[in-house]
């Protein structure tokens, strides 16, 4: 039977050599090579659950009064968008499961991309010939952040509105063009024209997913074109890649991972509540709630906004750079700038322009590892600052004291992390050298 199918396909497409090659395509084996796959499979869940949600969600800011299943909201004035999201949660059977799974998948998607990116960074997998793959991956991370933000902003619950007000303010704060850009995007002073909702919707369900899908295809095509990287081994060298072929060796492993991601996401979606929008209530300009936290992947931005001391850059009475610019735009732009330029920077400093198919262990490139740890520690402390109000609730440390500690810590701790990491890397390498010499001496003694 297989013979028959293969013949049918091959005679019409001539694809038999391609199929044969694909089946025996080599996947080097290491647990950390699976992180990107987790992101890929979360994206599949996002698309599937997302399509289902579009069948019920109504992207409209027309104000209505709620008369539905959830009695605490009875009679409240809200947008049709929010009402339809509440209805998905209470009226549509299995709707809450799909909505929560979608939200969990988004959180896991971005988390997997970030951890995958860290793996790529610390093993030097971004070096030529895979720097282009790395840039595309970074771009996907940026698009994914925006996509997630628009997703939870569309719902028009209280948190959506607060997040959008912040987004609007950050856009407004861009020097010279901010106010104009904000007027262009929102169509009016905040909360903007009603059309803004449909703009977010078409970006979230059409433009950005297609963009992510396209970049993803390009990313995977480049990975396949240059093959995977691998750690050095007896047979694993710069010229030869060793691992399990797609079929039968690798396919069941990858499918196992796919089903695990699906399974865990649906378990989370069914059992662990996330973004209970009915509790937040509808958004109105005059409303805000205390202790609000965005989805985790925006924590670094809220942290940066909170850590900034209170000043606008002004010349006399002329405001040049309003405050939110630094935390909301300057900080993330700088982080992405560093990540984009790192391969070039490293090439410049080390003079290493060679092709690399073998990965570094983090200790093998102590300076990269140390600087990387310092850099990500810096970002991480800013991220933690985004939850300072929650830390206050849990540990009782005064909010303003925390902010002052972190304003200092973001500059001190990374330096310590740098020195410590460099030291650990050097010690590990030295330990190995001692081991090698000991073994050589032992062999000599035996002989």
């Amino acid at each position, binding site marked *: 039977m297989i013979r028959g199918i293969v013949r049918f396909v091959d005679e019409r497409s001539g694809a038999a050599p391609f199929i044969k090659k694909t089946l025996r395509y*080599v996947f080097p084996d290491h647990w950390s090579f699976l992180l990107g796959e987790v992101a890929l499979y979360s994206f599949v869940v996002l698309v599937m659950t997302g399509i289902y949600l579009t069948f019920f969600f109504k992207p409209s800011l027309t104000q209505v009064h709620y008369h539905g299943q959830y009695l605490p909201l009875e009679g409240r004035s809200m947008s049709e968008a929010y009402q339809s999201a509440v209805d998905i949660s209470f009226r549509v*059977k*299995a709707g*809450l499961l799909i909505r*929560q799974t979608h939200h969990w998948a988004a959180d896991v998607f971005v988390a997997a991309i970030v951890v995958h990116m860290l793996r790529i960074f610390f093993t030097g997998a971004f070096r030529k010939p895979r720097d282009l793959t790395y840039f595309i991956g970074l771009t996907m991370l940026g698009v994914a952040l925006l996509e997630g933000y628009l997703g939870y902003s569309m719902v028009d619950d209280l948190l959506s509105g607060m997040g959008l007000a*912040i987004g609007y*303010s950050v856009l*407004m*704060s*861009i020097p010279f063009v901010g*106010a*104009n850009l*904000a*007027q*262009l*995007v*929102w*169509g*009016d002073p905040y909360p903007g024209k009603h059309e803004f909702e449909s703009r977010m919707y078409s970006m979230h369900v059409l433009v950005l997913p297609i963009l992510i899908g396209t970049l993803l295809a390009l990313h995977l095509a480049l990975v396949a074109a240059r*093959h995977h990287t691998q750690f050095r081994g007896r047979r694993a060298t*710069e*010229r*030869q*890649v*060793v691992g*399990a*072929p797609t079929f039968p*060796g690798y396919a*069941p492993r990858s*499918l*196992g991972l*796919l089903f695990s991601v*699906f*399974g*865990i*996401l*649906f*378990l989370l979606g*069914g059992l662990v509540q996330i973004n209970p929008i009915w509790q937040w209530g509808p958004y*109105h*300009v*005059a409303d805000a*709630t*205390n202790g*609000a936290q965005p989805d985790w992947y925006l924590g670094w931005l*809220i942290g940066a*906004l*909170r850590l900034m001391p*209170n*000043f606008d850059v002004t010349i006399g009475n*002329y*405001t040049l750079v*309003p*405050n*939110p610019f630094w935390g909301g735009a300057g900080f993330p732009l700088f982080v992405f700038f560093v990540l984009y330029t790192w391969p070039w920077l490293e090439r410049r400093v080390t003079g290493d322009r060679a092709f690399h*198919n073998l990965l570094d262990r983090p200790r093998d490139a102590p300076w990269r590892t140390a600087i990387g740890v310092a850099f990500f520690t810096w970002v991480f402390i800013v991220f933690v600052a985004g939850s300072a*109000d929650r830390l206050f609730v849990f540990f009782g440390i005064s*909010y*303003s004291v925390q*902010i002052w500690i972190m304003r200092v810590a973001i500059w001190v701790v990374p330096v310590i992390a740098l020195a410590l990491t460099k030291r650990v890397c050097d010690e590990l390498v030295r330990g190995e050298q001692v081991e090698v010499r000991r073994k050589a001496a032992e062999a000599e003694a035996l002989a």
Partner: protein
Amino acid sequence: MKRWLGALAVLVLGRGRRKPRLGDERERIVQLRFPDRRAEGFVAFAFIAAAVCAIAFPVIYAVDSIPAQTQFLGLSLGLAFLFLAVACVGLAKGVIDDETEEEYKPPSNPEEQEEVEQIFAETGERFTRRKLLWTAGGTAGVALGAALVTPALSLGPVFHTGSLYTTPWRRGRRLVDEVGRVLRADEIEQGVMYTAFPEHADREQMGAPLVVVRLKPEQLRLPAERKGWAPEGILAYSKICTHAGCAISLYRKPTFAVVEPHEAFVCPCHYSTFDPAKAGKVIFGPAGRDLPQLPLQIARGGELRAAGNFSGPVGPSWWGVRLHKARSGP
């Protein structure tokens, strides 16, 4: 009976099972290894468990009397996928030793690179006025690009930022609460923060909502030009934080005045803190501009009215925000 059952089992289970072909004349691609029957049983069990969970899903969906339907739906679907994953891992164990190697592609293909370059170079030789063509073509490209971008301007009034200064407040406008009741001065108690809106105006704009508090008149440290803006010590400020546009919904007040900090407005988004006694001055957090104050007056009946517009533009800042004053709009 036992023997009959045994024979039946052999018949059913034994059917279709092929002996591994040994000694095939072609070179093997997937290496031969004797199968592990217990592992195969395990995989089959996992598949059946996945099927059972998957069947449970539509059943749970159909039976409305089940409490916590969402949880059970998630449980059945999630477990179905996880059992599938377990089956895959079992299958993977059977082929775990399938390993192969492949040469990496050469770093580059200099010959083809040169040929590509040659194709373009030789094409270029067919044209003599290359510079002119490049310039003209480039001009066309840029002009057309600009033309195609033009419709995007319909999104919003990109060149008109004047409406950012507009608020619905003007002299004489009454303050109403969340349900539209007119606020009276004698209802404003100390230690409470009230939200107020302009009467008969759209509330869904940043210029509309106010926070109203009462301080002791001797606490006030307003600048000289704002004398009389806070009758009886009642103060009104914009409710929208000048940092990132969130609504100020926290009012910090001392419960033990001797040692605790004095009254302050706090925004819950980034904890910008404003001093109501000192004309909305920023005392903590990231806000870079004081909170705009609305002058109040108490009308003859004791109701609160605006005595003018805000001291400055409302909401988040932008470049040149302080160039104009707040203006009264609809």
